[in-house]
């Protein structure tokens, strides 16, 4: 279970606070969506969960399976099962996708006390997982994300997720830049990972994605706090009314 308690976050070296008391619980087996206007702190929340250094938690706590993750470096969080699918996946020129994936998977396996995979074992797993996402393994011989289209980058993020098998998945604006076909492939990939021991937090600006990844709960984040929580119908309501209501609350 993910528990976020009264989380206050500011940008390190700056005074502006972005999150001002976020409270949120995502039980295992559930998919929750976070929606909100631009600048509401959605991506900040995603980064803080993954442990990015440029943010400073000034108050509150993040617990995953009962343990605070705040003092853990990102790789330690990953070992505990945390995974962030980036809004803008990074390009790593010079590192072949396969090398990157294998290094990541074996680092995690080592930390989790599992034996590292041999090359044939890894390739078998990779082919199987990539196939489901309609990713050509040949493409993964190229440097990580370099020259990939927006859709290819997002699919490659979901492939990482499928391969690393995290238990806490955070998807940051996974739908941005995707056409309808790519969206369906990505959503299918995510849905296939829904499992009783896995919690998911889907961050999005638009309702569209939630037609494909149907959430158990929807939270509205605005002005650094969760303003409202509801069922999947809340997303449809927001699609009609927009975020104006929450913007005015802030003013």
């Amino acid at each position: 279970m993910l528990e976020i308690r009264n989380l206050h976050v500011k940008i390190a070296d700056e005074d502006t606070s972005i999150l001002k008391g976020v409270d949120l619980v995502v039980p295992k087996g559930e998919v929750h969506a976070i929606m909100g206007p631009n600048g509401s702190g959605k991506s900040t929340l995603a980064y803080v969960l993954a442990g990015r250094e440029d943010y400073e938690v000034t108050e509150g706590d993040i617990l995953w399976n009962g343990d605070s993750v705040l003092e853990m470096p990102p790789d330690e969080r990953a070992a505990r099962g945390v995974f962030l699918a980036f809004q803008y996946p990074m390009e790593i020129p010079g590192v072949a996708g396969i090398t990157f994936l294998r290094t990541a998977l074996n680092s995690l396996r080592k930390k989790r006390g599992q034996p590292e995979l041999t090359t044939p074992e890894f390739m078998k797993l990779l082919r199987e997982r990539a196939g489901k996402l309609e990713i050509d393994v040949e493409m993964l011989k190229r440097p990580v994300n370099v020259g990939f289209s927006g859709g290819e980058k997002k699919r490659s993020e979901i492939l990482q997720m499928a391969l690393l098998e995290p238990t806490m998945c955070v998807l940051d604006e996974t739908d941005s830049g995707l056409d309808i076909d790519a969206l369906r492939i990505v959503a299918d990939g995510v849905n296939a990972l829904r499992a009783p021991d896995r919690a998911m937090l889907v961050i999005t600006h638009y309702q569209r994605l939630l037609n494909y990844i149907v959430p158990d709960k929807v939270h509205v984040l605005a002005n650094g706090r969760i303003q409202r929580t509801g069922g999947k119908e809340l997303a449809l309501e927001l699609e009609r009314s927009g975020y104006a209501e929450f913007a005015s609350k802030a003013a």
Partner: protein
Amino acid sequence: MKTKAEAAITESFEAVSRQLPGGAAVREERRNAIGTFAALGLPHRRIEEWKYTDLRALLKEAFAPAVRGAAAPSEAELQAALGPLAGLDAYRVVVVDGAFDERLSSARMPEGLAVKPLGEALAQSPDRIGEGLVRSSRPGDALEALNSAFATDGAVVRIADGAAPDKPVLLVFARAGGERKAVTTRNVISIGKGAVVTLVEAFVALPGAAKEGHSNAATEIVIGEDAAVTHVKANVDTGKTVHLGSANARIGAGAAYRAFQLTAGPGLARNQIFATFAGEGGRLDCSGVFLAAGDEHIDTTLVVDHAVPGCESRELYKGVLDGRARGIFQGKVIVRPDAQKSDGKQMAQALMLSPDAEFDSKPELEIYADDVVCGHGSTSAEIDPELVFYCMSRGIPEPQARALLIESFVGEAIEKVEDEAIRAALMAMAREWLSKRTAPEPGRA
């Protein structure tokens, strides 16, 4: 005023000149060369091309010239010295301490590829040819003058028109023996029309080689029309060695010359490459990786002469600098008045692992024609913290994440080498250096 080292070099010539290979005309050529050097002295910072590498100040001592190779390393020792290149399937020419080693060299060469040790060629050739073998195409260059004066051995390679040897030619220059010395080697390579060949030069230290040593290595390479040549140079010599390397390439019409240098090991290295387009439609692809830590100093100086129209040159250099290391890239592109439609681009990038490291990059464009495309760029940066975060968020610990990113940075230049086996060996050599020298920063806050 001559420095101690300059005086010692000139004097040592008198001591060894009789032992150097070559007949009367060669001796005369060598005498002229040492005369040129005596007049020039070691290059120093007041000479523009040597602004960042003040050899007069840096080279405090001269070592005795190696004239007769005494070491007889075993195949196993050579393999150990070659490291990742040991497995390369190639026609091999081995020079140990400046002397051709027949035992370790390939006995047979394929048709169209003729290789002769320079020492033997000098001893056997008629005067005129011998003279040509030691004469530099840039006789006024102090390093090349020294090379002409002292060169003992190396490879004279001739590739016939249209020949395409089935394997690369690997020229190994190994340092051996416990005593400090100055080794001078020289290759003279001519490549026939339409030939396709890959040459690899490896500068390595054999087990037990002295910590200090000097090497001066020159390669003269003339590339025939429409030939395609890959010329890789890997210097992974160890210890406080000084390497002074010069390459002169003449690129024929329609020919492609792809050169790559990996420098990872010597304490002080200067790699100078002079490439001239001799015919239209030539292409030069020059790239390299320099890795330096501690007080190491690696200088890459390129001069590309677009002497004729319609040629293309590309340069990509990447360096990783740690400690108080210094990396230098000087890239000059000359476009002569008639050389219209010339296309020249260069890029030099350094990854700075320490605040005390220094990267000096000096592009120079001398363009005398009006219809040309030329560009240059240079960057120096630290490892991108966002990329480190990305890797760590996938479970890769910080030290490995940093190592992976450094590898990826140099990998982009190594990618330029088309031969897969050579590329893999170069990457492995770079990785070996990186794992030894760049201690990860544990627990960086």
